[in-house]
C-alpha cells in the first residue's frame, strides 16, 4: 500500500494544483531560492530560469491534470476504485508501486511533471534531484498542502559514484532523463519486471514554407518565434530549435530571411540574456559559423552538414520541398522531439510526422509544450498504473 493510496485522486490533483499556484508567484520564497540555485547549476540567465518556472507552474492546474488523467485512463475516479467502463470490463487503475525519477543535467523541472503524474497515480515517488533542489523544494510545498506527501513524495541528491545510492531494482518503475548511454546503463541495471521509462537526448527542427514567406512582416513574425525557440535554454533542450529548413522561392529571399533572423536573435538575446554555456562555448560557436561560411564558399551542400548543437546556433538550410528536410533528418540520424511549422500544409505536416517528431508547434511555441499533451510521445500517467479488471 502506498502513502497516497487511500486519498481520492481529486484531492491529490487539488493539492498539486494549489502548490503550483503558490509557485507561480515569482516572489514566493521557495521559488526565489530555487531560481537562484537553478541559475547557478545550469548557468542560464535569470530571465531564462524565470521563464522556465513560469511555463512549468502556470501549466500545472487541476483542470489540466484531470484532463490528462481522464484522457488516458477514462476518468479520474478510476484511480480510486473499480469503475464501470463503456463497452469494457469494470476496472481499477491502481498505482504501479514505487517510482524512481532520475532527472537530467540541463532540464528545468521536467522530472517534476513525471513525478507529479506518478503521485496522481498514487505511487510512492523518489526523485533524484539536482543540486538546485527544485523538486525537493516543491515537494515541501506539497507537504504543506497535504501531509500524506511526507511519505509519498521524496527527493534526494545522490551521485552514481556515492557509496550509498538507492537500489534501483527496488522500484516498480524507473523514469530517467538523460543521454542514451546513461539510459542504457540504467536500463541494464534493472530487473526485467521493473518498468523502465526513458527519455533520451533528442533534437528539434523547424520548417518555413515559401507561402508563409509572403511579406517581410510575416517573415519577421516567424523569425521572432524561431529566435525564441533557438535561444531558450541555450539550445540545449530537446525542444530547442537545432535545424531550420526554409523553402526557396518565397517572396522574401533567403538573404532577407537570414538578416531578419539575425535581427530577431539579437532581440531574443536581450529578452533572454546569454548564460554561461553560451560564454563557455563561444569559441566553438564562432568556429562553427566560420566553418559554415567556408563550406558555403566551396558550394558544399548544406544538407551534408550535421547540426552544430551549440548554444544559440541553429543550422539554417534552404530546401526545395519537405522531402529534402526528411532526407536531412534521416541522413544525419536525428531523433526528433519537436517540429515547428509555419503553416498547416499537409505535405509539411506529413514530413514532420514521418521524420519522427512527437510534437508539432508554431514557431515560438516549440519550447512551451502544454501539460495536456503527451511527453516525448508517451502518455503521462498511463505508465504509472497497473490495471485490475473485475470480470464478474
Amino acid at each position: 500500500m502506498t502513502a497516497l493510496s487511500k486519498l481520492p485522486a481529486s484531492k491529490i490533483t487539488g493539492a498539486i494544483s494549489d502548490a503550483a499556484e503558490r509557485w507561480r508567484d515569482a516572489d514566493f520564497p521557495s521559488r526565489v531560492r530555487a531560481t537562484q540555485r537553478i541559475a547557478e547549476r545550469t548557468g542560464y540567465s535569470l530571465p531564462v530560469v524565470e521563464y522556465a518556472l513560469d511555463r512549468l507552474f502556470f501549466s500545472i492546474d487541476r483542470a489540466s491534470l484531470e484532463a490528462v488523467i481522464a484522457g488516458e485512463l477514462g476518468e479520474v475516479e478510476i484511480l480510486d476504485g473499480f469503475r464501470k467502463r463503456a463497452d469494457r470490463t469494470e476496472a481499477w487503475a491502481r498505482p504501479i508501486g514505487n517510482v524512481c525519477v532520475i532527472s537530467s543535467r540541463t532540464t528545468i523541472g521536467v522530472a517534476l511533471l513525471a513525478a507529479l503524474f506518478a503521485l496522481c497515480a498514487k505511487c510512492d515517488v523518489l526523485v533524484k534531484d539536482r543540486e538546485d533542489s527544485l523538486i525537493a523544494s516543491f515537494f515541501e510545498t506539497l507537504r504543506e498542502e497535504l501531509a500524506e506527501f511526507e511519505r509519498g513524495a521524496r527527493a534526494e541528491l545522490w551521485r552514481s559514484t556515492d557509496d550509498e545510492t538507492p537500489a534501483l531494482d527496488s522500484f516498480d518503475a524507473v523514469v530517467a532523463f538523460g543521454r542514451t548511454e546513461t539510459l542504457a546503463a540504467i536500463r541494464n541495471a534493472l530487473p526485467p519486471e521493473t518498468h523502465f521509462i526513458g527519455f533520451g537526448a533528442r533534437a528539434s527542427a523547424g520548417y518555413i514554407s515559401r507561402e508563409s514567406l509572403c511579406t517581410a512582416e510575416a517573415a519577421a513574425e516567424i523569425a521572432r518565434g524561431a529566435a525564441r525557440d533557438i535561444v531558450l535554454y541555450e539550445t540545449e533542450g530537446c525542444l530547442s530549435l537545432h535545424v531550420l529548413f526554409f523553402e526557396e522561392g518565397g517572396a522574401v529571399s533567403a538573404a532577407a530571411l537570414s538578416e531578419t533572423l539575425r535581427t530577431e536573435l539579437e532581440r531574443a538575446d536581450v529578452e533572454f540574456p546569454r548564460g554561461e554555456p553560451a560564454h563557455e562555448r563561444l569559441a566553438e560557436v564562432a568556429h562553427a559559423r566560420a566553418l559554415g561560411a567556408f563550406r558555403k564558399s566551396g558550394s558544399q551542400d548544406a544538407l551534408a552538414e550535421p547540426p552544430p548543437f551549440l548554444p544559440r546556433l541553429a543550422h539554417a538550410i534552404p530546401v526545395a520541398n519537405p522531402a529534402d528536410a526528411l532526407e536531412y533528418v534521416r541522413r544525419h540520424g536525428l531523433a526528433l522531439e519537436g517540429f515547428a511549422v509555419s503553416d498547416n500544409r499537409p505535405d509539411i505536416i506529413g514530413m514532420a510526422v514521418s521524420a519522427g517528431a512527437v510534437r508539432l508547434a508554431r514557431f515560438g511555441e516549440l519550447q512551451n509544450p502544454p501539460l495536456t499533451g503527451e511527453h516525448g510521445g508517451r502518455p503521462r500517467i498511463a505508465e504509472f498504473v497497473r490495471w485490475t479488471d473485475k470480470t464478474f
Partner: protein
Amino acid sequence: MNEAYRVEADALDADILAAIAAQNVRDFDDLALRIFAHQLRNNEPYARYCASLGISRARMPRSWETIPPVPAGAFKEAALCTFDPARAELIFQTSGTTTGAGGIHYMESARLYDASLLAGFDDAVLGDAHQPLRYAMLLPSVEGKPRSSLSYMMARVANTFGDGRPSWYVDGDELDTQGFIEDLCESRASGIPLCIAGTAFAFVNLLDELARRGMQPALPLPSGSRIMETGGFKGRTRVVERIDLYKQLADAFSLPPHDIIGEYGMTELATQYYDRSGEEPRAKVGPPWLRSYAVDESGKQLPSGIVGALVHVDLANRSSCAAVQTEDLGAVFEDGSLVLIGRERGAELRGCSLDAESLRAVS
C-alpha cells in the same frame, strides 16, 4: 611547378627562416601580407573563402589582424595548401573526434616547420639547460604514428637536442609504464636529466599507474630535468584540472613548477606557444613569428584581455594558411601572451591526445 611560384615561395621561406634564426620579425605586417598574397594566389579553397568574405587581390587586407582566418575545421574538408599536396614533404593529421575524421595539414617543406619548432622549443623549454637531456616520450613514435605532428616534433627535438637515446612509451593504445620506470631509474643512476613529454591524458595514466604500484612520491628526477605537457581531455571520461595535474607531477617527480612547461599547439600550425613561467595563471607566449588575437562569435576582433575565440597568425605556415581560427577559448594581452580557458574540456586536440584515450598501462 610554376617557376614564378617557386621563386616567390623560396623568397618567402628565406625571409621567414631569417626571422626565425634572428628570433625577430622586422615588419610582421609586411611579411604576413606577402604570405597572404601568396596564399591567395595559390591556395584555391582558401582564396574562394576569402572571396566570399569580400577579400581578393583587388581588395587586400591592410594588416595581419585583418587577414581572414580559416577555421581549423576546414582542414578536414579541403586540401588547404599552396602546392600540389602530392609533393608535400610533411603531412600531419589531427586525431579528430571519436566520431569524426581528422584534418590534414600539408606542408611543402620540412625546413620551415623544423626551424620553427626547434627555435621555439629551445627558447621556451631548454632555456638554460647545461647538458643534453634524455627524452622520454609518453607518445607514440613517428614510426607508430607517422602523421602525428606531436610525435614528429618531439622526434626532431630529441634528435637535435637530446643525448641520442630517446625513448617512446606509447605503442598503439598501451603505455609501457614498466619500461618508463626502468629507463627513469637508469637516468637517475647516471645523473642524466630527463625531458618527459606527453599529453595530459598520458600523464594522468602514468600517475595512476605509479600510484597503483605504490611508487608515489618516489621518483625524483635528476637535476635539470623537465616535463612538457600538451593537450587536454576532450571526449575523455576522466578529466583532471591542469593545476591539479601539474601539482601531482611536481610531487611525483620532485620538480619545481617552472620546470613543468605547458605547450599549446595545433596540427594546423607550424609554431607552438609555451608557458612563460610556472606561476599561475600561466600565460603562454609564442615566438615573434606567431601572433594571436581573440574574436567574438561573429569573428569580430576583441580588445586585449577580453575572452574570445583564438585566432593565430603563424608565418611559418607559408605553404598552407597563415591565419587559423581555432575552437579554443582564451584571451590575448597587449604583450602578445595569451591565456587559454578551459581547453581541458574544449576543442579537439592536436596530435596524439585522442589516441591516448584508451591507454592501458602494461602491467
